[in-house]
């Protein structure tokens, strides 16, 4: 029996590791760090790498939701707007008697989750294509932002956020720690729960999933809600790190989150991939950005270099396996 079981579930092999996108992406990150560290003194310093991780934490958090959504066969174009809404929103809901600021953060996270949930509702019940639904939601949120932002003096005097943005625990920035904890949870949910399995099912073949008794609607709504929550969390973190939110603060995270997901080996077509690849994907992205920043060249050349680097690294980290 054991013998049979073995042939049916072959043991893990080193060769499989080399075909693993997440692993390859990690290897590339390390490679880039080493090369850049030698080429640009200061780049590879501990402090800088730690800072890159802090930046990656924000992208990484947003990309949790994006990874989930993409695996489930969708895409979320509203994450940037949700990040902004939550970063701008926390001060607005600051309540007296909420000394630690926890309550304000919780309210914002609930709001962000609800926005995601609405996305899911549109996708699941109105059967609106996720791109259209989330793009429309992003537009909608812009309108909301005009209403809520900038009108009054808003600045974040929130102790919890200040801690999140600045504290170091045994030398590790609180934001990175938060990312690590949430990532652990995200990975566990993705790979060790039936909910995670449902995402893979949905992304690979929604029809077969429905006929197998998976509640497609509920799963869809849940996954977009998770995406909203993750973006909300990222918004809160970025507010903590910056001390202040502003309209447009979330804009860079839309394409960054998608890029991190795809660089990490998750198929944009859905059904396969893992957040394990997105993590190094996010780190890779901030690393390249930092690298380009320190190159002294005209804006045009920097842009060209950035694009070429992404292409090159993509070539290394592996190709999309052919899909039938």
């Amino acid at each position, binding site marked *: 029996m054991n013998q049979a079981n073995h042939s049916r579930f072959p043991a893990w092999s080193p060769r499989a590791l080399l075909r693993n996108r997440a692993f390859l992406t990690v290897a590339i990150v390390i490679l880039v760090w080493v090369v850049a560290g030698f080429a640009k003194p200061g780049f590879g310093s501990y402090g800088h790498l730690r800072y890159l991780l802090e930046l990656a934490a924000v992208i990484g958090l947003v990309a949790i939701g994006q990874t989930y959504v993409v695996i489930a066969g969708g895409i979320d174009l509203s994450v940037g707007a949700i990040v902004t809404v939550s970063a701008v929103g926390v001060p607005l809901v600051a309540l007296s008697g909420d000394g630690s600021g926890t309550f304000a953060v919780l309210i914002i996270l609930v709001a962000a989750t609800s926005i995601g949930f609405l996305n899911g509702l549109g996708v699941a019940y109105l059967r609106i*294509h996720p*791109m259209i639904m989330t793009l429309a939601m992003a537009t*909608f949120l812009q309108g909301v932002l005009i209403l809520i932002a900038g009108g009054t003096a808003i600045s974040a005097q929130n102790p919890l956020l200040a801690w999140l943005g600045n504290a170091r625990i045994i030398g590790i920035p609180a934001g990175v720690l938060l990312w690590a904890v949430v990532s652990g949870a995200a990975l566990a949910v993705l790979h060790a729960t039936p909910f995670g399995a449902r995402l893979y099912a949905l992304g690979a073949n929604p029809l077969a999933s429905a006929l197998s008794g998976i509640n*497609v609607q509920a799963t869809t709504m849940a996954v977009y809600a998770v995406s909203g929550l993750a973006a909300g969390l990222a918004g809160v973190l970025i507010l903590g790190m910056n001390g202040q939110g502003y309209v447009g603060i979330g804009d860079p995270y839309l394409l960054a989150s998608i890029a991190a997901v795809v660089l990490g080996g998750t198929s944009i077509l859905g059904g396969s991939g893992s957040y394990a690849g997105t993590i190094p994907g996010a780190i890779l992205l901030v690393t390249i950005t930092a690298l380009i920043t320190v190159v002294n060249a*005209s804006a045009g050349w920097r842009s*060209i270099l950035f*694009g070429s680097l*992404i292409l090159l690294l993509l070539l290394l980290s592996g*190709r999309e396996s052919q899909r039938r």
Partner: protein
Amino acid sequence: MSSMIRTGDDRLYWRVQGERNRGLMGLFAVVAAFLALYAYLFPGLLSVAGVSKFAQSWLPLALVAMAQAILMLTGGISLAIGATVSLGAVIAATTMSGYFGVAGGIVAVSASGLVIGALCGVIAIRLRLPAIIVTLAASFIIGGLALLILPRPGGAIPGWFSDLLAGNTPAALVLVFLVALLWKLYLATPLGLSLYAAGENPVGAYRAGVPVDAARIAAYAISGLLSTLAGLFIAAQTGSGDPVIGQAFTLNSIAAAVLGGVGFLGGRGTMRGAIAGSLLLSVMINVMFFLGFPPVAQYVAQGLIIIGAVALPQLTARFRRRP
């Protein structure tokens, strides 16, 4: 066994065209309603000048919607559309008033679009890299090129050419029809029609003798061409070049295509749908203006209109559908 030509067989092409309208009637109705509303709010629309001006603002979006749709039909997507539009505009504005003149400029713009598109296609398809991230990288490279050519807005388009394309003539409308016609012509070629098969079922298409890779790379090239031509038109319309003018077109082209029922996984959708989608996005802006919406309402309404335009036909078709 007799093989009698059956009624309708002789008009196969037109019947096929008719079938392709199915599923789009809802969108067509929404677009028509908006056009009617626009004409009601602004009766001046129903004049040569009115139509001309509206068509001018719509044409670039229609072109990029087509550029995106053709890729989506093959199962690809491009995030480089915006940058390619900018590049087209910049090349037009720097070449046309130079030695080679307007004709040389058109050639340069077209050639750069074809080449850049084909390159993206070759990289994405031959190297089997995911299109979305290849084109994201390409958008930086292409955008960088545009900045190198024209670091800040400038350049010039000869006045007569601007007036020809974007004066008080319905040239833009004619161009829309012309491009649509060329598209129909392309779809009537074996390579063109292969798009659908190559998008939906590449393995099967390959086995059936469809040059799958060629069809896809050609789609990328055409997409690049349409994008730079949109840039050329914008340059003519504005009389100059701007290295970041196209940025918004990336997402808008996707929105228009998806709104028009073009599927994300390849092989599903029609160009007429994408064009209708772009028309809706374009006319919506004017309608909201004439309804006097303040910015907040513009954003909110825009979101709702887009959702509504997709949801309504979906909901009505609901009962005929499988889960």
